[in-house]
């Protein structure tokens, strides 16, 4: 009863914020925009035939295939929703959840209830994830339906993006919650969470790209092993994105793309190789090690919350 009340309250609070409706509006807009496009042999129909664009962009290697286009679109959605704009909006949207909860005058009424503080914290924490869960569900289901109904391509694995989005968000939300418990500041929560996100992405980028860009990189044992270890400790935000692509069958779509010359073909094949290598990592290892990091941060935040005078 108490836990449910906290979650319902969190959802009511999120519904009251403009950013909730902005994110919802963006989801509808993306789905509507996708709905306006359809594909035929060598043609792209826009707005139900109002404009017809003739192109051979998708026909080079495979000939035009709607499922390839769908895979590419979903691939783009994954990058945007999980890797960029979506995460950014989620961080901003939820950064004030804990600071408002901990406001003087607001927290007193809650702390005097017959409920352990860890449970209060957890209720609020899950409440924040429910907010993102609702947004992710609306976005993924809408785009899933457009791809299926309009383009005739059903990608049931794409629906797994919903829990993966929530999971990816939770890796960052734990940082936001910890910063909020310590500082009670929304701005600090936003800034430090974004900084952490950039650091996580940066570590993964260095680990992926430096061996390719700098052939002698692996010989610098200290740096190389340091980055490898750091990668295993911090949440694997990039890998989650690849995992979502894999499960939605959108991964590796780039290899099917057109290549005008040998250089482009080589580039696409190289990108595809990197993706294959990433996807070879066990999902359990990717998710599990990241969850371990999250658990440590959440436990520390809970301890801090339980020990603080308000």
């Amino acid at each position, binding site marked *: 009863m*108490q836990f449910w*009340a906290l979650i319902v309250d969190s959802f*009511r*609070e999120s519904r009251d914020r403009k950013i909730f409706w902005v994110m919802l509006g963006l989801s509808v807009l993306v789905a509507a925009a996708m709905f306006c496009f359809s594909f035929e042999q060598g043609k792209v129909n826009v707005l139900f035939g109002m404009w017809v664009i003739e192109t051979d962009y998708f026909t080079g290697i495979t000939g035009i295939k709607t499922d390839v286009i769908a895979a590419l679109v979903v691939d783009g959605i994954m990058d945007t929703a999980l890797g960029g704009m979506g995460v950014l909006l989620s961080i901003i949207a939820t950064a004030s959840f804990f600071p*408002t909860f901990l406001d003087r*005058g607001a927290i007193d*009424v809650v702390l005097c*209830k017959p409920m352990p503080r860890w449970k209060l914290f957890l209720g609020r924490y899950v409440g924040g994830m429910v907010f993102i869960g609702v947004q992710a569900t609306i976005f993924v289901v809408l785009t899933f339906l457009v791809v299926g109904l309009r383009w005739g391509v059903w990608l049931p694995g794409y629906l797994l993006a919903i829990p993966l989005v929530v999971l990816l968000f939770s890796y960052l939300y734990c940082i936001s919650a910890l910063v909020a418990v310590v500082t009670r500041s929304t701005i600090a929560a936003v800034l430090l969470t974004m900084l952490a996100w950039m650091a996580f992405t940066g570590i993964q980028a260095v680990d992926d790209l430096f061996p390719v860009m700098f052939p002698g990189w692996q010989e610098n044992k200290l740096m190389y092993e340091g980055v490898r270890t750091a990668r295993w400790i911090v949440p694997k935000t990039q890998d989650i994105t690849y995992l979502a692509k894999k499960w939605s069958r959108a991964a590796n779509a780039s290899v099917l793309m057109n290549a005008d010359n040998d250089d482009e073909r080589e580039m696409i094949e190289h990108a595809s190789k990197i993706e294959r290598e990433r996807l070879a990592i066990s999902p359990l290892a990717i998710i599990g090690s990241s969850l371990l990091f999250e658990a440590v941060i959440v436990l520390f935040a809970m301890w801090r919350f339980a*020990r603080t005078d308000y």
Partner: protein
Amino acid sequence: MVALTEMTNWAVDLIDVRKTYAKNIYALRGVNIQVGRGEIFGLLGPNGAGKTTLVKIMMTVVRPTRALGTILGRPLGHRGKLARTGYLPENHRFPGYLTGLQLLDYYAALAKVPSATRRRNARRLLDQLGLSQWGDVRIDKYSKGMMQRLGIAQALMNDPELIVLDEPTDGLDPVGRRDVRQLLVDLRREGKTVFLNSHLLSELEMVCDRVAILVNGLVARQGTLSELTEHTVEYRITFSGDAQPLKNKLAGLHAAVDGDMVILSGHDAAKVNAVIDLLRGQGILIESVQPHRFSLEDILVEAMAATVPQHQSRDRQGADYPNPERKRRVRW
């Protein structure tokens, strides 16, 4: 054992409650307070005396450095008993996105009140506090007084045995204050215990059975209003004539001349008669004799004056008790 402790007559029995903040700031320095079941108890004191800290410790919002005692028969900090306690904090801030009914439902759910009871109590309390038309209106549309009444309603949603109210009449107009006073009296009649923290001494005087005066983190006075005032009565004797020649004789009776009035401290009627005899013996006309009972304000001022200033007491405290936090930590 539990049954025995539950049977205690004290709703609140605080023993040696201490709170030391960082940098050796002693907010509470060993507070002992007892509140009987079914009484309205008032806590008063100047700003910074530690009243709100004490209330927050009772409600587990702040952890004490050291604390013994019980609330509703269970050790201080016992979470289960919080289900039988209602609390209105000072300067509360309720979420503006909720309606009055949603707010009451939310806080009562956190207090483990069953759903059907929540619905019933919410309507009843809104009606009782004059907010029946506002139940479905968002709180950010409420005035300060309405917010305060809503705060009192949320404190009563779980039908508590003990109600702790921190400045409950803050922001209320005179009619609202009267309504709250009446509500407190009704609660007492129902057998509930009310712990009131207020700086409005006249409010406390009107409803409290017992009071405690907190000064510099210590209880300076505690007892019923009559207990606190019985030794602090003075008589004011007004007269016509010249009493200056009797100044020394009056001083011998612990009386002083102040204009056309002689002020006699204490409550000894024999001394009053002696002063009157003395005045009349000089042909002075007695116009009136009025016993003057000290108000709570007088007692508070007296208590403050009698207490060692905080910076001095801190030095003394520091010498005796370098860091109470090290002496004993309370785990909640």
